[in-house]
């Protein structure tokens, strides 16, 4: 594909809609109404265009490629240096609501309307640049309907989730995720253990970085792994061949050698729901007060949108399905058992190249057990939204031994506005992106641990390094 035209938007793709800084993950499907940033439209016309194309929403919700790609701000050269002459009397806009409505009805595009609003504002030229900017932004948001369709990536999806549904990803900020991927030395060809309850976002990020090379064992609580966000990445099918899952509830038995994937245990598993419905349930639990609904999972989206059209077909097939169901269930159960055994075998080798934890659970028990599966001289990273559990985890890991270079950290992120003569840090920022505890495994020797603990705890009075290298 080098040098050639970029990849095109195809039906069935997982894509991301972008408007300004706002993202939304969607499935590209025909005759499907999408609502995004209070605009509704259909993606039909986007199919066949190259990823990265910018569209304008026209009458009837159709997408029309924009000629000039300019997400630049409507530039205005004149600006007041201060606002000493502004008296706000509510009469500064000469265009009436009716005027604006008339413009819209005439099919005048949003950008043009904003320009007219500026020209008809009596106070705009006297406003400071800052105030002008604010005004334009507000008006653009209201009247322009421009969206760009881009390919999903960790950058986009982690930014999107943090902005729109932080509760679903335990408030894991994108830069913290970036630290995890680097501290974990995630790369092609490794064997990674991932334990997350971040809607599958962390799993997806790890998969992206491994590019289909190597293997991943996803540890999951409850009935099945949650991969709503993972599916938004639009990975090729092959990426899932070496993605395994293993239930957290079997970790202890695996560690002490009593684990079995045989049928007598399966009913227990069956009582719980399958991956998909479990997923829905979990998400509801986590974020009961979610204000906006997102189409995180393209499959889900389809289900809810097309219920009317598909229901008829569904009923007709019901009886046939019932018979097939039994046989299918058996096959599925057998397959599941096989996969479970495979995952268990992978873990039993105890040679994973790393461990990534980002969950809503207390990290200490997870670390103490899952580190058993990791080879020596490999990195591990644990995320927690709060600092206190990681203090505990740190202490317990020091007691356990077999880990060095433990580091508890947090990252600060500052975004900037860089504009001629108006550069400064953004006026709002994230209050916190969560905490990380990272370290490196070493071969665990016996008996020395309490000593090690004593040494590692930093003290302002220590002047030279001790003889114990932990």
């Amino acid at each position, binding site marked *: 594909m080098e040098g050639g035209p970029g990849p095109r938007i195809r039906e069935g793709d997982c894509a991301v809609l972008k408007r300004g800084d706002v993202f939304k993950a969607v499935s590209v499907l025909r005759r499907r109404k999408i609502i995004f940033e209070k605009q509704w439209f259909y993606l039909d016309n986007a199919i066949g265009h190259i990823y990265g194309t910018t569209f304008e929403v026209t009458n009837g919700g159709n997408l029309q490629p924009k000629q000039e790609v300019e997400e630049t701000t409507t530039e205005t050269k004149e600006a007041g240096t201060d606002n000493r002459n502004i008296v706000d009397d509510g009469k500064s806009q000469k265009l009436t609501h009716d005027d604006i409505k008339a413009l819209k009805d005439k099919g005048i595009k949003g950008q043009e309307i904003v320009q007219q609003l500026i020209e008809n504002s009596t106070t705009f030229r006297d406003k400071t640049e800052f105030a002008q900017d604010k005004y334009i932004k507000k008006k653009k948001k209201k009247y322009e309907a421009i969206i760009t369709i881009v390919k999903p990536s960790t950058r986009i999806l982690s930014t999107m989730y943090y902005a729109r549904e932080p509760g679903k990803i335990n408030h894991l900020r994108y830069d913290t995720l970036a630290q995890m991927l680097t501290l974990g030395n995630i790369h092609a060809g490794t064997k990674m253990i991932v334990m997350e309850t971040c809607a599958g976002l962390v799993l997806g990020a790890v998969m992206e970085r491994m590019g289909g090379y190597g293997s991943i064992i996803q540890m999951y609580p409850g009935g099945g792994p949650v991969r709503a966000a993972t599916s938004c990445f639009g990975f090729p099918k092959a990426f899932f061949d070496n993605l395994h899952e293993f239930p957290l509830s079997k970790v*202890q038995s695996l560690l002490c050698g009593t684990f079995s994937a045989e049928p007598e245990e399966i009913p227990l598993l069956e009582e719980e729901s399958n991956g998909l419905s479990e997923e829905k349930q979990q998400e509801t639990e986590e974020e009961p007060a979610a204000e906006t609904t997102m189409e995180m999972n393209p499959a889900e989206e389809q289900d809810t949108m097309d219920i009317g059209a598909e229901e008829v077909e569904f009923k007709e097939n019901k009886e046939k399905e019932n018979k097939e169901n039994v046989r299918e269930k058996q096959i599925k159960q057998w397959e599941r058992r096989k996969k479970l055994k495979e995952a268990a075998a992978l873990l039993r080798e105890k040679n994973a190249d790393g461990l990534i934890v980002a969950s809503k659970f207390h990290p200490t028990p997870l670390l103490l057990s899952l580190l058993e599966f990791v080879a020596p001289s490999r990195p591990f990273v644990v995320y927690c939204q709060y600092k206190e559990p990681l203090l505990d985890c740190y202490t317990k890991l020091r007691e356990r031994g077999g880990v060095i270079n433990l580091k508890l950290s947090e990252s600060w992120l500052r975004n900037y506005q860089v504009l001629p003569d108006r550069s400064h840090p953004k006026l709002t920022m994230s209050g916190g992106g969560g905490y990380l505890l990272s370290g490196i495994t070493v071969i665990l020797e016996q008996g020395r641990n309490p000593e090690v603990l004593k040494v590692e705890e930093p003290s302002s009075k220590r002047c030279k390094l001790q003889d114990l290298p932990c």
Partner: protein
Amino acid sequence: MPGGNYKIVTMSFVEYGDTIKDGDTAIVFLGHESMFPVKVQHGTVTQTKYGVIRHSTDLIGKKYGSKVTCSKGGWVFILHPTPELWTMNLPHRTQILYSTDISIITMMLELKPGSIVCESGTGSGSLSHALIRTVAPTGHLYTVEFHQQRAEKAREEFREHGVEHLVTVTNQDVCKNGFGVSNIADAVFLDIPSPWEAIGHAKSALKAEGGRICSFSPCIEQVQRTCLAMEEYGFTEINTLEILLRVYNVRTISLQIPDLGKAAEDNSSSGFDSSNPSQQSSPCANLQQGTVQFKSGVPLREVVGHTGYLTFATKSLV
């Protein structure tokens, strides 16, 4: 409790009083940082979401810090005004300075009772009230505001707040006309769009033996020009800084203990086949099933990311 032994003092932002009196500006505290100022007046009523407060019976004569029950049964606290409460509640005529910046400005300008300080612009008077509080009872604030309406409003507020004898409000352009005083100020504060145009005026307002200056600007380009101007005018110890407040919510957090299952099928945990059995057996025995609770200071999701850069400098002895 009310009635009886309260002494009559004129209410002032620079002097605490014990009881609420006619004419006072008081703060009605509704809870959770929700509050508003009220001008106490015989016969007046104030509407709150908890119902009506009748000034004559509910406020006047009560002690500051009292709980007042409103007509619908809800209750509020009535607080004595302070410059800090005023900053949280004042009517915004402009962007205002908040207490975090005000704190460092006051300290870095070395203000104390008796200091003479110049300020421009007055804006909504947020900083002005704090400055007056600090330089009272023997100091003075000269504040210059180019916007006439704002200058007048500020004068009115200072009068209402019992501090008019400590402040002189001038309505002029500081960049053109300066502060209207020379060689008397211990400190000068600038919060104007082009501070570099006022550095010369600031210098001549300051005492001959020297003093401190501070300029507040949101944009780094303003800072760059201001620093150059300060250097040009011979200021030393030029120092730019930024201060941000991080507020933490105190929360009780419950974290679930993950269910890692039992080691054996149906008898108790039999230990891991680990290389370190002594340490390792049942690593989370005391945590099995359930939740762990702890207190945490949780940052707000979105916080103030920037207010402005503060540039301080010293007018040295020449």
